[in-house]
Every structure is written in structure tokens, then in C-alpha cells.
């Protein structure tokens, strides 16, 4: 098994791909029996410091319906200068530039180690990056001040030739013109009126060609004379202006009567931002960065009225169908998100408020466009400040870790079809022979648009095995998948990253098996060996994340309990399929190593905020789900099952079970849930700390002990995006709830006496513990009734 682990890891490092099954079933029937679909997690822009992009363009298969890119899996006839497409088997001539090709002189794309390769496209105009700030001014003074400072700071981080724009909103929406001297100019819109893109462009004076296109440059459809947009200007030109402008930003001046929320026209502001970019820079990478300090309270997209006495919708209201504005607002933002996505613009939302801000309604803006969603309490917190700063972090080449306007195209060999994708993308509705009828996630297409990408953005891509049971491919055949990602690099280059992967397929893995029979037969032995092979190639981590994505995807549209039931059923079926057990004998149940962690992931997934809304506001749920749908495997696993480290005098820090039994008085715990970093001092430790031992020279080791988790936490904080909430608490502290709610409640008030005092802290909950969960699972798995 070690080999498989290595294989998986290697593949991930090289290609950024993790399949749920690394050996593929050879027929549709077999695939369906395997419960967990054949799918992969793809990180299209995984950082590859060792992969310099090649400065030429890829060679395409000449079959118009295929257009796959030359890759190491292709058969090449060096003599004839021909290559055979490994997807459609079309034979293609090499282009003239490849005249010198030979076995010893291969282009990079033919070398096996370049299963992932990046091309730079030299043609076409270079479009600058665009950053459009959309800023709420209905903030408290210090919040606004902090936000202004962050924004001013960000100007220095932007590439000098990128374009920036500024829209502010409160009761009205102002689009600031940046190029004027001596007077600051802005266009003002009523916050209550929905405008069409055409109207917005008319009103901003964008429809008239302000400057005739210079004849020297052939006008291309994509190309816009930059000068034409007074609202988007190169940073290096106007950073002084803009800094002053930001400095002079005032809180929304309209009076807010007692008992009212400020009127906030977020819906119109976003609409104008989208309309502005749509009119000026369609199909050019752009980020709309929305900073808001409260819910939209008027106009299209309003989430709550301005009466403070009417609270913003809760999950309870939504279940009761009591959220008046939700549907309409959601529709508004969906429309905007789709328009933005169609133009390749991504929308970020930075929402900082103590109450909800309407992320539930607005989530599509980020989810469909690949933007970030950041939720905080205030702009005046390091959580926001550092998160925001981190957006502009740079890679080893000094480029931003962001890419724009990407299209991901997936090509499959004949045995596979594409069922769909789940991630920060929208469908481009490109049908083709390799698109399946059955949809999982966003399906019905072989291409998706991902308007904003960073090196960790990860999509789950689901496949369907289509080869028929009676027409299998020869055993040991290899199925292949090619991922082609076109994108605008932050250096403004257009690039194409191509990843071509292949996996073994097993022919007739289970020839003699029939449905529902687990009993050994003659074929069993045979099947058993095959099965073992398949089992061994199971990537339970990837599978857990992929299943979780499916679950979360469903949860967006279905009732929570239904999703949980579905997940349970899948888990039981999987255990039935791959468990070793005697019928009706739960105690005999065993899972192989490659499956052993999977039920536990599912257990924690069921308890996770992605599927449980209890204790979370709709906004929080939306935010958690947002991040879950775009993070890579490692982060996703942390989200599903937080990591817990224990620090003590007994030895070096060690990971411990995420279990209440790990909460001991003489331990310091460090929990990372992705969204929170919790440092928890056990009872004794806390007492010592209060007594001040750490300040006594003779207890310096205690000081070190206290410091250790802090240092580790810092390390995580440094690397994580978005910045997690950092919680420092202790036994009995109110914030300890963050820890208590995550750990497996192996000890509760119900079984407390059975377990004895020493072993850990009881959790006051009625939730089932992992133990109980597993017991039930075993029982159900071995039961022939279900």
C-alpha cells in the first residue's frame, strides 16, 4: 500500500490531481457498484516552482471535435513526424517548428515528467489586471478608517500597470472618476433603482467612443482603449490621487434615525460594478472587491429592511419560509454573478460586521466567479487586515498568486465521460462527445469558466465510466484525462496549463459476481484479488472530500436531513461493498487500511458546519461552504476533521485524537479547524498560568511550554488564507466551546460515570459519539436487511 500512497502523493505534487480511485473500473456497472464515484480533485494552478513555462504554443490534435493537446501519452512516429492523439486516435502532422524532432530531441511536452506543462501564449493583446474596489461607507468611524488604510496600503501592492477603480456606496452609489486634477469627480446613482447594464453604461458616458480607436492598432474585439475609461486608471498614474481620495472618504452622510439600519445600496453598487466592467473590459481579468459592513438594506438585492426591530433572517426563518427578501435578493445577485462570470470578472466579498451581512444571498457572487469570501467582525481587526494583505501575496517569481478569467477544459478518453464539476466555476455549456448525461455538480459541459483562481483553488471533477460490461477494454489499459486550463496570469500573460493523467483500468474486475452476494464463490477468489487491487488504489482522503463536496453541493438545494441520509446510505453501501465481515455479525466487520479512516471522516463531516446549520447563521454556513468548495485536499480535510495537537511536559507535541478524551488538565491543546485556531489550556495548566509560574525563572520550562503552541499557531496563521480566527482560551473559558463542539463527544453527561474522571472532559451534548456511530454502521453494514 505504501506504493499507492507514494504514487498518489507524487501525482498530487506533479499534477495537482487526486483521484478517488486510482485504478478505474472497466465498466459502467462496476463503477456504479463502487459507490464512491470516479472523480478527482484538481488544483489547476498548483504551484510548481520546478516548472518553467514554455514559451510557445501547444500543438493541437487536428480533429475539430477533439483538439487535444500533444502530451507524453501520445504515440509519436518520429520518422514520419506524426503523432497519434491518445484521445481520438487521430494521426497528426507535427507543425513545421517541430522539424528537428527525434527520439533524442523531444519537445518538453512529450517527456513523461511533463505530464503537466505550461505554455505562454504570445499572441493577442496583453490586458492589464483590473481591481475595482466597491466600498461600503456605512461604517463606524474607526472601521472605515481601518478599511481606508487597508485600501491605501493595497495600492502599493498592486502591479503598477494594473487598473484600479473605486465605487463607494451607502444610501447612494458613487462611481469615482480617477483621472481628474483639482477636483474629485464621481457619478452618483440612486441606491434604490435597478439599472440595466445599458443604462449604467449610458449614465457613465461609456457608450460614446470618447476617444477614437487609434488606427495604428487594429481594433480587436477584446481590446478597449484604456483611456476610454475614466473610472479605471493605471495604479502608477493615480495612486496619489486615489490615496487622497480614499483619505477623504467620509462616512455616508445621510442621517440614520434611531432604531434604523443605515440605508445600504449594496445590490446596486455591485450591479454598477459589474455593468462598468462589462462595458469597458469584457473578457479581461478583473476583480471586483466588495467591502461591506452590513447587510444591504435597500434597493434590489436588499436582504433586510432598515427597521432594526426586524432582525435579519435566520435559518429558522428560512425553514419557515419567512425570509421575505431572500429569494428576490438571491435572484438579483445570481444574475449579477452570471454576468460577471460571463465576462471573466470575479467578485470578492469582504464582509465585516457583528451581525449577518447577507452572504447567504450574495454567495453566488463569489462562488460562481471564483472570488473570495471573507467574513469578519470588523475591518479594524488583524483577521481582515492580514487576510486582505495576503490576497496580494506573491509567488517565488514575484507574481501575484492569482489568475483570472480561466477556462478549464477536460478531455477524456473514450471510456469516461464527464459528469460535472464542483468548485468556484460556472459552466460554459460546451457539449461534446465526452459529456455525460448524468450530472454530478455543475454538469452538462466539458468546459467551465473560473474567473478567479489561485494556486490552491481546487475543483472536484466527477466522471462516469461508460464502457459497457460486455465490451471491456483489455486489462491493463489506460484511461486518460487531459485538463487544459487557459488563464490570464497575473503577469498579464495568457497561459495554458495542460495536465494529462492516465490510470490503469481493470478489465472485468468482478466477472462472476452478482448483485448482493458477498459469499465466497469460485470467482470470488479471483474477484477478491481484483477487489484488493481496487481497494488498494482507493484514495480515501480524496474520496472523503469529493463525497463531501457532493454532499455540500446537495445541501445548497436540499433539506439538511436528506443530505445526511444520503451520505449515510452511501457510507453503508461502501462498507457493505468493501468491508470484510460475516453477515449479521457486527463484530466481524473489518475495513482495509485504505478505507479505515473514511467512516471517521464521514462522522466528522456529518457534524461539520457544512452540513449542520445549528448554531450557525445562514451567512456563516454560506461562508464555510464557500471555502470548502474551493480549498485543496489538505485544507478540506482539516475542515472536515480538525487537527488537534497536544502539548505537555511528557514529551514533544503530538497529534491526538479529536476526542473529548484528549482534553486533559495537564495538556495544552492546539486545534486547527481551518477557520479557527484554538489554543486551549487544560485546567491545571491554566491554574499554573494564573499563578504566574511562567514568570518565575525556575519554571522557565513552563514558559516554553506555553509558548510552543503559540509559535505553532503563528506558523499556521502565516500560511492560511483566509486568516483563521485565533482563539486563546482555557479550561472553563467561554471560548472553549469552539473546541468542545468539534471533538468527538466520547464522554458526555450521559456516559460520564462509565468512563471515569481522569480520562478527559465530558461534553454536554446529546450528539452521538464516534463509537456509537461506528457501532451503528457496522450493524447496518452487516445486516442483510438493508
Amino acid at each position, binding site marked *: 500500500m505504501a506504493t499507492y500512497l507514494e504514487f498518489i502523493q507524487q501525482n498530487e505534487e506533479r499534477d495537482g490531481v487526486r483521484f478517488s480511485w486510482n485504478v478505474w473500473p472497466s465498466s459502467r456497472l462496476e463503477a456504479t457498484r463502487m459507490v464512491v464515484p470516479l472523480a478527482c480533485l484538481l488544483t489547476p494552478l498548483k504551484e510548481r516552482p520546478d516548472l518553467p513555462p514554455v514559451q510557445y504554443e501547444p500543438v493541437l490534435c487536428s480533429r475539430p471535435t477533439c483538439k487535444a493537446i500533444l502530451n507524453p501519452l501520445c504515440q509519436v512516429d518520429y520518422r514520419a513526424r506524426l503523432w497519434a492523439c491518445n484521445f481520438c486516435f487521430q494521426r497528426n502532422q507535427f507543425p513545421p517548428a517541430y522539424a528537428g524532432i527525434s527520439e533524442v530531441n523531444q519537445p518538453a511536452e512529450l517527456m513523461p515528467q511533463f505530464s503537466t506543462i505550461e505554455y505562454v501564449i504570445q499572441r493577442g493583446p496583453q490586458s492589464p489586471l483590473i481591481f475595482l474596489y466597491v466600498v461600503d461607507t456605512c461604517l463606524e468611524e474607526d472601521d472605515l478608517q481601518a478599511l481606508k488604510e487597508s485600501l491605501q496600503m493595497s495600492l502599493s501592492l498592486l502591479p503598477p500597470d494594473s487598473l484600479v477603480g473605486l465605487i463607494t456606496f451607502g444610501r447612494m452609489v458613487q462611481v469615482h472618476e480617477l483621472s*481628474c486634477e483639482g477636483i474629485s*469627480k*464621481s457619478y*452618483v446613482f440612486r441606491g434604490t433603482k435597478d439599472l440595466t447594464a445599458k443604462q449604467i453604461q449610458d449614465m457613465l*458616458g461609456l457608450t460614446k467612443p470618447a476617444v477614437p480607436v487609434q488606427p495604428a492598432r487594429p481594433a480587436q474585439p477584446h481590446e478597449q482603449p484604456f483611456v476610454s475609461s475614466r473610472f479605471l486608471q493605471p495604479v502608477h498614474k493615480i495612486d496619489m490621487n486615489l490615496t*487622497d481620495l480614499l483619505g*477623504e472618504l467620509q462616512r455616508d452622510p445621510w442621517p440614520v434615525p434611531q432604531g434604523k439600519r443605515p440605508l445600504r445600496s449594496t445590490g446596486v453598487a455591485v450591479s454598477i460594478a459589474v455593468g462598468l466592467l462589462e462595458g469597458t473590459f469584457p473578457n479581461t481579468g478583473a476583480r471586483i472587491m466588495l467591502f461591506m459592513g452590513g447587510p444591504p438594506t435597500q434597493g434590489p438585492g436588499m436582504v433586510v429592511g432598515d427597521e432594526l426591530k426586524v432582525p435579519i433572517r435566520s435559518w429558522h426563518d428560512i425553514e419557515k419560509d419567512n425570509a421575505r427578501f431572500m429569494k428576490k435578493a438571491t435572484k438579483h445577485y445570481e444574475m449579477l454573478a452570471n454576468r460577471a462570470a460571463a465576462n471573466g470578472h470575479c467578485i470578492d466579498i469582504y464582509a465585516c460586521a457583528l451581525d449577518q451581512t447577507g452572504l447567504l444571498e450574495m454567495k453566488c457572487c463569489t462562488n460562481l466567479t471564483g472570488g473570495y469570501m471573507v467574513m469578519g467582525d470588523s475591518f479594524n481587526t488583524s483577521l481582515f487586515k492580514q487576510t486582505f494583505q495576503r490576497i496580494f501575496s506573491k509567488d517565488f517569481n514575484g507574481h501575484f498568486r492569482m489568475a483570472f478569467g480561466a477556462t478549464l477544459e477536460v478531455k477524456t478518453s473514450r471510456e469516461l465521460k464527464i459528469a460535472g464539476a464542483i468548485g468556484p466555476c460556472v459552466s460554459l455549456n460546451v457539449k461534446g462527445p465526452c459529456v455525460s448525461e448524468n450530472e454530478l455538480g455543475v454538469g452538462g459541459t466539458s468546459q467551465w469558466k473560473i474567473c478567479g483562481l489561485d494556486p490552491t483553488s481546487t475543483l472536484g471533477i466527477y466522471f462516469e465510466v461508460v464502457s459497457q460490461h460486455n465490451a471491456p477494454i483489455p486489462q491493463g489499459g489506460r484511461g486518460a484525462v487531459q485538463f487544459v486550463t487557459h488563464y490570464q496570469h497575473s503577469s498579464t500573460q495568457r497561459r495554458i496549463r495542460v495536465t494529462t493523467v492516465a490510470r490503469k483500468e481493470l478489465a472485468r474486475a468482478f466477472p462472476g459476481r452478482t448483485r448482493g452476494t458477498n459469499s465466497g464463490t469460485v470467482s470470488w477468489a479471483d474477484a477478491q484479488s481484483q477487489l484488493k487491487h481496487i481497494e488498494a488504489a482507493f484514495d480515501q482522503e480524496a474520496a472523503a472530500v469529493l463525497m463531501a463536496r457532493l454532499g455540500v453541493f446537495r445541501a445548497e438545494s436540499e433539506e439538511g436531513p436528506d443530505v445526511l441520509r444520503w451520505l449515510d446510505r452511501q457510507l453503508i453501501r461502501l462498507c457493505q461493498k468493501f468491508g470484510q465481515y460475516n453477515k449479521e455479525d457486527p463484530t466481524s466487520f473489518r475495513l482495509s487500511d485504505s478505507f479505515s479512516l473514511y467512516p471517521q471522516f464521514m462522522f466528522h463531516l456529518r457534524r461539520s458546519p457544512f452540513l449542520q446549520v445549528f448554531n450557525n447563521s445562514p451567512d456563516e454556513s454560506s461562508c464555510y461552504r464557500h471555502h470548502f468548495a474551493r480549498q485543496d485536499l489538505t485544507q478540506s480535510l482539516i475542515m472536515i476533521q480538525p487537527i488537534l495537537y497536544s502539548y505537555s511536559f511528557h514529551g514533544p507535541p503530538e497529534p491526538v485524537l479529536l476526542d473529548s478524551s484528549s482534553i486533559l488538565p495537564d495538556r495544552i491543546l492546539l486545534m486547527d479547524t481551518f477557520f479557527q485556531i484554538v489554543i486551549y489550556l487544560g485546567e491545571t495548566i491554566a491554574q499554573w498560568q494564573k499563578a504566574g509560574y511562567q514568570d518565575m525563572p525556575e519554571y522557565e520550562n513552563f514558559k516554553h511550554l506555553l509558548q510552543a503552541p503559540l509559535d505553532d499557531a503563528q506558523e499556521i496563521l502565516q500560511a492560511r488564507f483566509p486568516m483563521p480566527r485565533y482563539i486563546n482560551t482555557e479550561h472553563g473559558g467561554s471560548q472553549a466551546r469552539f473546541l468542545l463542539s468539534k471533538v468527538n463527544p466520547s464522554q458526555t453527561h450521559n456516559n460520564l460515570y462509565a468512563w471515569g474522571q481522569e480520562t478527559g472532559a465530558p461534553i454536554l451534548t446529546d450528539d452521538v459519539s464516534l463509537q456509537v456511530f461506528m457501532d451503528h454502521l457496522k450493524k447496518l453494514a452487516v445486516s442483510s436487511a438493508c
Partner: protein
Amino acid sequence: MNVNQSAPPVPPFGQPQPVYPGYHQSSYGGQPGSTAAPTPYGAYNGPVPGYQQTPPPGAPPASTAQAPGGQAAYGQFGQGDVQNGPSSTVQMQRLPGSQPFGSAPLVPVVSQPAVLQPYGPPPTSAQVTAQLAGMHISGAVAPVPPTSGLGYGPPTSLASASGSFPNSGLYGSYPQGQAQGHPGAQPPQRSVLPQASSFTPSASGGPRMPSMTGPLLPGQSFGGPPVSQPNHISSPPPQALTPGTQMSGPPGPPPPMHSSQQPGYQLQQNGSFGPARGPQPNYGSPYPGTATFGSQPGPPQPLPPKRLDPDAIPSPIQVIEDDRNNRGSEPFITGVRGQVPPLVTTNFLVKDQGNASPRYIRCTSYNIPCTSDMAKQAQVPLAAVIKPLARLPPEEASPYVVDHGESGPLRCNRCKAYMCPFMQFIEGGRRFQCCFCSCINDVPPQYFQHLDHTGKRVDAYDRPELSLGSYEFLATVDYCKNNKFPSPPAFIFMIDVSYNAIRSGLVRLLCEELKSLLDFLPREGGAEESAVRVGFVTYNKVLHFYNVKSSLAQPQMMVVSDVGDMFVPLLDGFLVNVNESRTVITSLLDQIPEMFADTRETETVFAPVIQAGMEALKAAECAGKLFLFHTSLPIAEAPGKLKNRDDRKLINTDKEKTLFQPQTGAYQTLAKECVAQGCCVDLFLFPNQYVDVATLSVVPQLTGGSVYKYACFQVENDQERFLSDLRRDVQKVVGFDAVMRVRTSTGIRAVDFFGAFYMSNTTDVELAGLDGDKTVTVEFKHDDRLNEESGALLQCALLYTSCAGQRRLRIHNLALNCCTQLADLYRNCETDTLINYMAKFAYRGVLNSPVKTVRDTLITQCAQILACYRKNCASPSSAGQLILPECMKLLPVYLNCVLKSDVLQPGAEVTTDDRAYVRQLVTSMDVAETNVFFYPRLLPLTKSPIENTTEPPAVRASEERLSNGDIYLLENGLNLFLWVGASVQQGVVQSLFGVSSFSQITSGLSVLPVLDNLLSKKVRGLIDGLRAQRSRYMKLIVVKQEDKLEMLFKHFLVEDKSLSGGASYVDFLCHMHKEIRQLLS
């Protein structure tokens, strides 16, 4: 006349006259020599011949005759006077006035009387007699003297012109070519004709009109014209008239005509007038049509001879002079009920002793008929022209402010009238009886005071509200909108920055000016700094608001493109205190012209701009004023979008009224909202072409604002005028968010209102803004009997917010007499006020009726008024005599001016916008303004010695009064001309213009060079003085005799026939006489 004239003044004047004649004859070329004519007569005669020649023979003889005739005419007057007999004392007073003119005359007059009527014959030749009809113009009542004055007519030419303006004039007409002469005119005439015909029937051949050669034959006419109507004051020297009328192009101006009627007259009285003769012929032919009221028809034939002597008919100049001399010296004390104040043209001081000063209220009559029957019979409109916030001369104290404390001003419980000097305290002062509704009210304890033995409160003289006609109360919070004391008002400057505005240099000029002008915002009393806040908006197709908050380093501009749904994008920083935000404002005003320097935007919006200003005030919860600077027809897609609907073909059709009506109702709706918010709109227009003033001015009109129009604005030429109007407009004291209510004694009731305001019910006049120039005219009707003893009371209460944001009530009280005798009514009328009312009435009428109907109505009403007088008040006399009440003797001449004004009788070159502009301008004019507007002032500059510093006496507005060796100044409140005669002495030219000869003077010059000599200083001083008197800056236009521009100038010579068909004074008078006779018979 000759006689009289000749005596004193003649010499100077005389000369000129001759000259004119000369013109006619020779058609200008002529006779320079004319000057030579020793005596006036001579002059006339001279010309005559000329005329006659053209025409047939008959005339010649006449000419000679005429001269004499003229004299005779005088005589008549005299008589007339006599007849009328001395009437009221007041009138008597006027006598003196007349004297000045020719004291000599006076005597003669008297003597003449005897002569009079009959004598027409004597002096003149037989013919004369025959011709002349008798018209007497006699001051009805006592007017004697005055009349005589008229008679004399100061020999000189007085030009008084009123009436039609030349379009081109000041309002700026567009560049169109000016029509010449008559063309346009004819149509009108036609319409007129009918009337004429009516009377003329008898006249022989009368109707022939135009072609009519008929006229020529004087002879015939004579005979023929048996017409009956006696009246007209025909004029003697026809020539003179003619000249005036003819003016430019047309050779033969139609004679004005009366002649036709004259026949009748002749018989009767003064042949003297008759002389007119010769000229007529000429006219007849050429112009026939033009003649005004129908007169023509007849005229031709009749007679040439018959013209009335213009000097014989009532002269406005004389009346004004008389009044000045009689009443200018002593203060007018308002203590006595029903006193007729001095004329508006007289400088006098007012002492408030219980009635409002005539500066605040003037009535058409100070003695009201007790019953509605009488009122109906007399047809004299009962109206008051009220200027509640009128500015007072420095010598007069502005109204005292009274504070009645928390309970607010003391009022009658029933009718809500405010405490005033006429309230009767009874029961030892514990109660008071309301003088309006007779309700008995308790006196609140804190207001109690004992009465003295006359029943007067002992503190009456300590309390303005008990002793004065005008005073103010401090309003309590109950009088405020939303029961909240108002915030200080705000001014918003809204500047068109479209291509036209930028190109003409307007924007730059304006911004530069505003920088300094902002220091002169109106402030109250001794306040150190104005409480008024300011805001700025610029616009073309979209609006730009500016944030000029003092804390900003630079102004912020906020563009609102959503003109379909206007809103105000900012609250804080839009309206600011000038001193606090000075640097930001200055920076803004520097930027604006730069920012738009390269604009290509030509389209503008209009309604959204007003909407925006109004919303801004609403958001700031204050009243205020918008200053809009606008250039073009708002054709951009937005509410209130207009299309060009200017259609000259509509003139003289039933649809003509649509030209005065707004295109869309949107502006009325908007105006209503503005009024509700106390948002007054002042509009400055700078059009290069049609902008639809009728529609654009709706909002200013309904919100109590003003409209200023500068056609084809060019910085070099018009900056002075614009800036000075702007300065005055910005600096003037304004009351905001005002409501005016006029209460009256039981028996009469305010029924109709004219002016710039809005009314949402029938009694309250709502004014978003009201300044010291705006006038509200109120008409009263009887709803019951009035009591002769108690008289009739008016109380005008104006609730307004001062520029410092203080809520106040200004009260004006006026007590009038009531009469049971019509004669009392006629004795206490004021013609200027009457004309003011009638003009406003007519100008409103054109919105709903065809212009012709409106004109007919005016004529009929005037005829009825005069006929009623003749029937009921005048001493019996021949039907052929025209007898006018002393107080109304100028009614015909003034009314004629109204009738021929551009609104009612447009010339070809008058644009639709001009008419609409004037129409709305007149609506809120006060009496003094309408007076000079309709009958312009014509001042000879070189007649009196240079050292003489007083304003020279005016002359009548007629071309025949101009002498080509002199320089004249003409003004009507909007226009200012300097007319230079062709043979002015070189020295004068040099000292005034700094050039050596007449030919070197630039025609159309608008600024006189500053030269260091007496004449130049005097003239410039005079011009400045005139400008200071008027609420709008009058741009000077230098007109040279015989120059193209002279056309323009002649338009203002209102006693002459106008090119657009307006009748000459003489003709009109004849026509009026005919009408009256018809009514009487």
C-alpha cells in the same frame, strides 16, 4: 397751439419740428433748411405743401389753414377745461403744474375758453372748422387747468412712447432680419377695420382702405366725410404724425387716421385742428392698411384736414410734470382715508399715519362705489397693486417689527384679521370690534390698555400696529411649516455647461463673478454675515453636484446621470456657509470653466435641474432660491423635454394662444412641488434660438421668481447687463416660503390675482419667494353693499421667512372711501394703476383667447368707462366732444400703448420667445414699471443748458418731437437708447463720443466713452441714474438718425403709428371717441 407754444419754449423746439416735416416731404433728404422755419407754423406749412403735391390738389389750401387751426385747437382745450369746471380740489392743485409750462398759456387758456368750441372756426379757415371735430379733451372734472396744459402741449416734441417695443429691442431678439415697415402690420389692421367701419359708416367711402387713394383727395374727403364722429382729437400737423409713423422705409405711411370721422367734427368745433390736412393724402395711399383702428377707412377721404393737433390732446408728459410740480414737494401723509397719492412718476416722501404707503399698495380707485350696480355701470376695475416687500427710499423707515410674544399676533377671532389701526376698542378697552367683520373680540389681558376720551387707546402711538399702515409681526412657531422654526434659506447656483454656454464665455464670466458676488448675499439688518448658504450645480445632459465642505482639500463633483428620476446625491457639504468654505468654493469656481472647456455636449435638460434644486432644499429642510443659467431648448431625453414648436403662422389665428401656453403640464406640477418646498426659481436665459420661454418660465413664474433673457449672449457686449442684473438679483432681499392673504371689509372681496405666484385655493397667494420688485395685483368685486361712512378697508398680510430665517408677518392696511356718486369714483381714480391692471388682465387673457378678442375687450372696456363718465358725470355738451375725466385723460394714450405692445400686436421681428418673455415680465410689474414700460421716457439731452443738473423734462414719444440737431435718451425700463440727430453740433459729438463727426459715431455702440467734460459726465450720470431706478439693467444702444438701428428705436415712439399696425395716439383717440359715441347713442 401755436400761440401758446410759441411763446415760451418755442424757439428751441420749434426748430426741430420743422425739421421733421422736412423729412417727410423730402423723405429725409430734404430740407435741412427746414430748421430755418422761423415759426413753427411755418415749418408745418412747409411740409404740407410737399405732401399735397403728391396727392391731388385739394389739400394745399388747407395747409395754411391748418396752422391757424392748431391754435384754435388750443383754444378749445381751454374751453374744455372751463367746461368741466373746476372740480375737486385735488385737481385744482394740479393746476399749478400746468403753469410752469407755459405760464403764459395759462392765461390764455382761460381766455380762450371763451373762444372755444365755437371758435374753432375763428382762427382757422373755414375748412378748418369744418374738419375738426370737436373733441374736447377735457379733464372732466376740474381738470381745467391741466388740460390747458395739454393743450399747449409743450410745443416740443415729446415723445412718449410706450406700447410696442421693438422687438428687437432689448429682450434681444434674435438676429432675424427685421422686417421693415409695414408688411406685418397690415393684418392687424384688418382686424381693426371692422370696428372702424362700424363707426365710420357714415363716413364717405370710408372703408376703402388701403389702396385708397381716396385719401388723397383731401378735398373730397372733406366734403365727403360727413362723418359724424366728432371726436377725435385730431391733430394738426399731420405731418408730424406721419413722420413718426412712417419711419423708415415706407414712404408713405398711412396716415393715421381719423380723418374719416372728422367730418363730423369739423362742423362742430374747432376747425382749428383741422389743419392737418395735407399729409393724409399721402398716407392714405401707401399705407392705407396700416392705419390703426379702422380709422383709416374713413379717413382718407375725409380729410386731410382734419387731424387733431397732437399737441392738443392730453399729454402724458404734461400730466407727469404737473403732478411732479404740484405734489413732489410735500410729503404724502397717509392719515386721510381715500386720498389719491401722487403719480408714480413723482418723487415724494411718504409719512405713514395709518395707511400703507402707495409704495406698497396702489389702487385703481380710492373711492369705491358702494354697490355692485354702480361698479358695473362704471366698469372701472377695482384693483389694488400690492408690492408687499417694496423697497423704500432711505428717508423712509422700514416697517417696525412687533413682537406679541408667545401668543402670537393679536387677531380677530372670526375673520382672523390682524390687529390694525382701524380696529375699534370698546368697553373701556376690554374688547375690540373687528373693522373687517364687525366681530367683537376680547382683548387679552396682557394687551389691555385704557382708552382716552376719544375712545382711542392711550398707547396707540406706542404701538405700530395701532398707528401705522404697515408693520411686521414676529411669527410664532404656529406660523411655521411643520411647526418648526425655519432654517436660514439657501441659494443654489445651477449652471448650464453645455457647449453653447462654454463657447459664449458665459460660464467663465459667471464663475469669476460669483467669487466676489458671494460676499454680497442678502443679510438681515446689521448682521455681519449672511445666513444664506450656497450650493452649486452644473449640468448639461446630466447634473453635476459639488461638495464644497470646508474640510475638503478640493471640491468634489458628483455626477447624476439618472435625470429621469432625479435625486440629490449628497447632503453634507452641498449647502455651505460661504465664509467657511471659501477656499473650496473659489477652487471650484476656478475649476468649472476648465473642466468643461472641451465639452462637446450640446444637449441640455431643464426640469430635472429644477427638480434637483428643489430636492436639495427639501433634503436640507429649508427654503431657498435657485439661480438657473440656461442656454438652450431642453431636448435631451428627460422629464420636461421640449420640442421646438415655434410657429409664426399661428399669429393672428385662434391658435395663437398656444404660443403662450406651456408645452407640457410637467412644469406646473414641478412648480407646485417647488412652492410647497419654498423653492423660488430665478431663470437666466442665454438663448441663441428658440428656447420656449413660455414653457421654461412656468416654474419661475409660479414660484415668484424672475426670468432674465439675454439673446445671443456675447461676453463683450452683454456682460455688463448680465452681471449687473445678476448682482442685483443675488443681493436683493427676498422673503421665502410666503403666503399672502388679502382681507377686506364686508361688501367687497378679493376675487382675482395676478402676478408671479401659485394659488392652491382661492384666497391664499403662495409665493415660494418674494422680492422687493414683485407685485401682486388683486381685483375686488362687490358681494354686498359698502357703507359710505365706514369706507372700505384692505388688509394685506404676508407671512414669510426672512433671509436670516426669521418667520414674520408683514401687514399693510389701507382704508378707501366709498361713494354713491359715480363722479366721486371718477375723481379718485389712478390711470397708471388702471393700466397696470388692464395690461395684466389682457396679458393673462392671451393665454386663453385669441389676441384680437383680448384687444377688443380692452377697447370696449375703456370705451365703457369713458362713456359712463360722459353720461353720468360730465356736464352736458355736444356729442361731438370727447370729454375725458381728469383722472383718466391719459387712459386712451396709455391703453393704446398696451394694445400695440408686442404681446398684443407683434411686429414681424418679434419672436415668440420675446412675447412670452414680456408677457410674464409684465405680470409682476409694479405701477411705475408698467407706466414707463408702456409709455417710454424720452429725454432731450442737449436742450437745456449743460450746467443744469436736473433731469431734463421729457418729451412725448413721437418722432415729430425729435429734432435732428439734438440728442435724446429713451428708456422704458428694459431698453435704453441714445438717439443722435444727424445735424448735431460737432462739439457735442466730440464731447460725448470722442469722435469728430456724426458719421464717425459707431452705430449700436453700447458704452459711452468716459470723457472729461461736462456734457459727457452729465449724460453718463443721467444714464446711470436711470439704470439705478430700474430693477433691470438697461443696455445702452446708440442710434444714429437715419441709421438701420433707428427702426428699432422708432418702435418705442408710441404716439406714432407703429410698423406692426398699432395706431397712433391721435388715431386711437378718434377711434375711442367713436366708440364712446356709439355707446352713448
